[in-house]
């Protein structure tokens, strides 16, 4: 199942993080992070609560600012230069735990807003693209509703479609299923699996270990702001090296 997707990984570097450190005040959240992501790679990040997973992926599109080290996304280094930041943000899609759809706009308007204003796509064309992606996440019939009228799972799929409408080269997911009821988790995961099979570069914070096994090329385990272990999924789950990973896996898979 993972084989055909694995073929699409290229040598091209999508994200390159070297020696990155971040502090909240005097609290050292991220410590000496080094991570290189190839184009087409699908990475799952897991770890205990408060270990800095969200902070790490939010640094990649500069929702959080890092203080030391270097982050290069798509060949552009993240500095305080606003032009670079906006450029990177329009190439990197992000899905949040709480969807963050715009409640005052319809589903279709949610999806066309950024293409129209950031990419300057003509409205008609943006709407066609939006409908294409809404069909892909299997909710084209909801296009004229407002987010408040949709179920959680539907909202998250809209959020994914909204990001895809910008034709991003990298997608970041921050616990996309953890605010959902069990029966809705599957529909969102299915959408993400489909995306992965098309060769999208993905960084995904999640505790869905089934998803990690099926889709990821690499699983990264974080604890206390550091990358403690990373490995291919089979090796990671069957044969964890560090004690902290073992403990974490026993807690999460134990019940």
């Amino acid at each position, binding site marked *: 199942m993972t084989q055909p997707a694995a073929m699409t990984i290229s040598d091209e570097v999508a994200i390159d993080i070297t020696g990155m450190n971040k502090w909240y005040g005097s609290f050292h959240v991220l410590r000496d992070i080094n991570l290189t992501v190839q184009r087409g790679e699908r990475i799952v990040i897991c770890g205990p609560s408060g270990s800095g997973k969200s902070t790490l992926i939010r640094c990649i*599109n500069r*929702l959080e600012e890092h203080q030391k080290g270097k982050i290069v996304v798509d060949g552009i280094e993240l500095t305080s230069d*606003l032009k670079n930041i*906006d*450029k990177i*943000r*329009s*190439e*990197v*899609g*992000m899905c*949040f735990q*709480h969807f*963050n*759809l*715009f*409640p*005052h706009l319809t589903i279709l308007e949610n999806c066309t*807003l*950024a293409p129209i*204003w*950031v990419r300057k796509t003509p409205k008609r064309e943006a709407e066609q693209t939006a409908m294409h992606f809404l069909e892909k996440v299997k909710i084209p019939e909801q296009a004229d509703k*407002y987010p*408040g*009228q949709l179920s959680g799972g539907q909202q998250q799929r809209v959020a994914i479609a*909204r*990001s895809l409408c*910008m034709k991003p080269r990298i997608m970041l997911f921050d616990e996309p299923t953890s605010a959902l009821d069990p029966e809705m988790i599957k529909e969102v995961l299915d959408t993400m699996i489909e995306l992965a099979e098309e060769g999208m570069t993905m960084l995904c914070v999640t505790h869905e270990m089934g998803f990690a096994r099926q889709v990821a090329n690499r699983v990264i385990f974080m604890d206390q702001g550091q990358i403690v272990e990373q490995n291919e999924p089979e090796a990671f789950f069957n044969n964890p090296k560090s004690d902290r990973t073992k403990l974490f896996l026993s807690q999460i898979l134990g019940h």
Partner: protein
Amino acid sequence: MSDQHTPAAVAYVRTETLPELPPPASEAGLVKWLRENLFSSIPNSILTILSLWAIYVILSGVIPWITNGIWDASNIRECRELLNGASGGCFAVIAERWPQLVFGIAYPQDAYWRPSLAFVLLLVAVAPVLFSNLPRMLLAVTLVYPFLAYWLLWGGSIFIPITAFGGAAIGYMVYTRLVAQSFAMGLLGGVVAALLAWWVFGFITDNTRGVLALEAVASRDMGGFMLNMILGTVCVSLSLPIGIVLALGRQSDMLIIKWICVVFIEFIRGVPLITLLFVASVVLAYFFPPGTTQDLILRVIIMITLFSSAYIAEVIRGGLAALPRGQYEAGDSLGLDYAQAMRLIILPQALKISIPGIVNVAVGLFKDTTLVSVISMFDLVGMIRGPILASTDWSGVYWELWGFAALLFFIVCYSISQYSQWLERKLATDHR
């Protein structure tokens, strides 16, 4: 169905739907409504009867006073004779002093059509802003309206509003050219271009004073309810954008801008409006170049606008604070820049939350325009208090005059509040 009664069968599946039946008579119609709402208990019944009695007493006093009212008399003594001891209002004062109540004492009589036309056009100009389902073409009227209304009210050569509009248009064009590079550049360029254009056009207007001119009316001749309407409309429409800018400034990461906004807002909110108006009438004159000091209305408009924009800024800040951080982050993560995120995502939601507060400020502001009577401007209240009640013809007709003033303000304020409730319902998309 019969399964239900056999004790052995605990498991039970209903196979048919029961038909819908009409409710019993006591649960429908007027009787039910009366019983539930007015006579549900003994204390409730007593209260109902007491209230009905109070309403009867009030109405039996007020209705004859209105229906017996005298509409045709030239002074209060004639009015009293006509009434001949009966209870009745002396509404003749409103009929006789109507032009003064509406336009003030000094506005030229043969020009009354100008403010009236301006008022009708105001309704046309405001409509497309208030109701988004009207044709967007009408917005052109809204754009031109401020210049047209100025010309109608104050008179003078038509070149003054035309060149003013031209300067603004040039400024806007320069702004749209430059804004692609940066917002600050665009704003600065636009303002400079507009000022330059006005300066150049100044030579034209100086030499065409008499061309296509309406009779000029001085600011001090504006009065009556017209003055309240001018102050209310201008100040509300100016203080909304200024309030938005102040609220955003107060949230800004740029410390200097933030502190300027904080100090401004806190200072204005800590001062009574009436002191600001005295400042306008006396002190502010020193800050203007000599020759422009005549215009008291301009100074009053500046002060009321500053005052209400500080309040509106605080209302909007509340709306901004109520938005979850995720909305900002979603906007950022899609690559929208600050101006786009604010205009398309943050402000529409924050303003929607702030509608009740903004309307509150607007209604309060409109009523506060009557305070200008204290600095001897003859608005509606000033007219009644001064020229009309002080005249020998009509001294003593308090109820009728103040009732009339209250009615005028009530009509405007109630319409505003009804509109805002309608707007809130229309914008409700959250379906909670």
